[in-house]
């Protein structure tokens, strides 16, 4: 059976590589986000009307490639070390493996079909298959690269860069989940679960929140309703999520929490010592996460412009405020501020500011960060006791709680009355909503709905995915393997020579 599966995998692998090499068609109809052909000027396709071939903006492209690198660094080695240092030394390599290999798997799946079902035109919940195998994203014969729209009319980056940037998002989201069931899950089960969850939860929610036709599709008043109707379900609702509070953090956190419940607690949980084996590495990981997150947040502006700058500085301020808040909270609660607390505080602030970064003012960001420090502290203490699950590395306590908080507060501090930029009310003229017209209550309600949809969708998909994996491969390693340590039993290696 194993040999059959290996042959099958190899065969499929060769087939897909083959398709990449031979199926480079001429650029397909412009991918939804590029959208240079609004119905108005579609007629003479070659005899170009006013805009000829869209010009790629070099500054924006350079920034987006840099941002992509920063996000990759966030996962490997950032998150790998952050998580790794928190587990016992006998499981260090297993955490590093689960992060690195899951990351790689999702990147490959993204190239094969993930990008297409998330970011092409389809329905309100799933995209289409126009970009399967990245078909049409460039034309090797003509030497042309499909353009992807940004948030400014007439400004483009290569779609390849957009796809690569989003690949890093999809991959890091799946690696987040690993923290919940660390130290007891089968390696193959991790990979299978992540592949399923990525397909049926990450991609559709990314599509629902972020997919739209791009600013150039809004050429005139007449097409607005038609263009709006092509956007993702939550995008149409008006949900604001700059860099992925719902898509990444709440989505992954729920998957982690469901997993923690379904897999069960670690042997000896609550009785045996399970202290972190290297808070030094955890701090290194947290620092790499903070630095890398500037790419995650500011890169979500898709351009090197004022909004990227706003996201940048908010990522700076909110995180710093959160570090202080967590330290203050711990000092009040138990008399000492700890390194783990400071590192966790940083992550809490980063998570909370993720949906808000380009959507709020600097003061709003500081407040969001400060509150998230305390919220995260509660998430890993009070809430964790209430929930009663062994969420090993507090994925829900930090990413879930602070993701929800950040998503809701985005609706508050986005308001021009509170220093925020508001949102674009009319994409034809690219004008924002006025302070007078802005209803914080209404926006927070929209945010809450988006949070709710994400929680329910991810919860259901996660539950089914874990069940499928449990019934086919089995989720957990044997008791002896868990006791001995996953490094030896799952990977045949020791992290530290004795």
């Amino acid at each position, binding site marked *: 059976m194993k040999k059959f599966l290996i042959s099958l995998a190899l065969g499929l692998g060769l087939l897909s590589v083959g398709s990449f090499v031979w199926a480079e068609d001429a650029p397909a109809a412009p991918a939804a986000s590029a959208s240079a052909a609004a119905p108005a000027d579609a007629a003479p396709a070659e005899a170009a009307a006013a805009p000829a071939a869209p010009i790629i903006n070099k500054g924006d492209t350079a920034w987006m490639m840099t941002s992509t690198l920063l996000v990759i660094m966030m996962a490997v080695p950032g998150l790998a070390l952050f998580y790794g240092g928190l587990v016992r030394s006998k499981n260090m390599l297993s955490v590093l493996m689960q992060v690195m290999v899951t990351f790689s798997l999702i990147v490959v799946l993204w190239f094969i079909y993930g990008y297409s079902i998330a970011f092409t035109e389809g329905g309100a919940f799933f995209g289409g298959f126009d970009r399967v195998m990245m078909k049409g994203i460039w034309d090797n014969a003509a030497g042309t690269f499909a353009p992807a729209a940004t948030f400014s009319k007439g400004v483009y980056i290569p779609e390849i860069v957009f796809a690569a940037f989003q690949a890093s998002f999809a991959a890091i989201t799946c690696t987040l989940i690993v923290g919940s069931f660390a130290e007891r899950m089968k390696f193959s089960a991790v990979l299978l679960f992540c592949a399923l969850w990525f397909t049926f939860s990450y991609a559709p929610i990314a599509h629902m929140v972020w997919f739209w036709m791009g600013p150039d599709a809004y050429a005139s008043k007449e097409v607005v309703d038609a263009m709006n109707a092509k956007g993702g379900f939550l995008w149409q609702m008006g949900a604001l999520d700059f860099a992925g509070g719902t898509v990444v953090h709440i989505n992954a956190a729920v998957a982690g929490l469901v997993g923690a419940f379904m897999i069960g607690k670690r042997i000896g949980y609550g009785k045996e*010592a399970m*202290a*972190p084996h290297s808070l030094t590495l955890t701090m290194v990981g947290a620092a790499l996460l903070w630095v890398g997150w500037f790419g995650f947040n500011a890169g979500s502006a898709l351009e090197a412009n004022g909004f990227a700058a706003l996201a940048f500085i908010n990522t700076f301020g909110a995180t710093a405020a959160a570090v202080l808040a967590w330290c203050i909270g711990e000092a009040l609660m*138990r008399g000492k501020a*700890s390194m*783990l607390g400071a590192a966790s505080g940083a992550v809490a602030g980063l998570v909370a500011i993720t949906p808000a970064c380009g959507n709020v003012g600097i003061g709003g960001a500081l407040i969001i960060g400060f509150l998230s420090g305390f919220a995260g502290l509660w998430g*890993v203490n009070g809430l964790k006791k209430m929930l009663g699950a062994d969420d090993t590395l507090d994925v829900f306590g930090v990413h879930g709680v602070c993701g929800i908080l950040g998503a809701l507060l985005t609706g508050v501090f986005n308001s021009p009355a509170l220093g925020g930029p508001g949102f674009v009310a009319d994409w034809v003229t690219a004008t924002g909503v006025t302070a007078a017209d802005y209803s914080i209550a209404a926006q927070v309600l929209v945010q809450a709905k988006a949070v709710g949809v994400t929680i329910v969708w991810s919860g259901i998909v996660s539950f089914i995915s874990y069940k499928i994996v449990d019934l086919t491969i089995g989720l957990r390693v044997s008791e002896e393997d868990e006791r001995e340590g996953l490094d030896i039993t799952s990977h045949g290696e020791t992290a530290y020579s004795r």
Partner: protein
Amino acid sequence: MKLVTAIIKPFKLDEVREALSAIGLQGITVTEVKGFGRQKGHTELYRGAEYVVDFLPKVKIEAAIDSSLLDRVIEAIEGAARTGKIGDGKVFVYDLEQVIRIRTGETGKDAL
């Protein structure tokens, strides 16, 4: 011949080693150990998980000596390792039946 074992606070190791060299001891064996007596441990807190750590790090010194040196060795160790606070440690004295130097095969006092 006697085997003298002492459990001391780790930062006292250099002082004790110097004191033993001063009275002519040629060699000792040192191990890092953990333990507790009347000195209590501490609590560690990692996010919500509290760990009571009973064991404290200590250093164990072992020296094989001629019986005639015993009193001076005990005095040297006690003097160098004492701080006056709880947790200073203990000295244990065992009778040593036989000692062999591996390189030459010498036994007994010649091997010390």
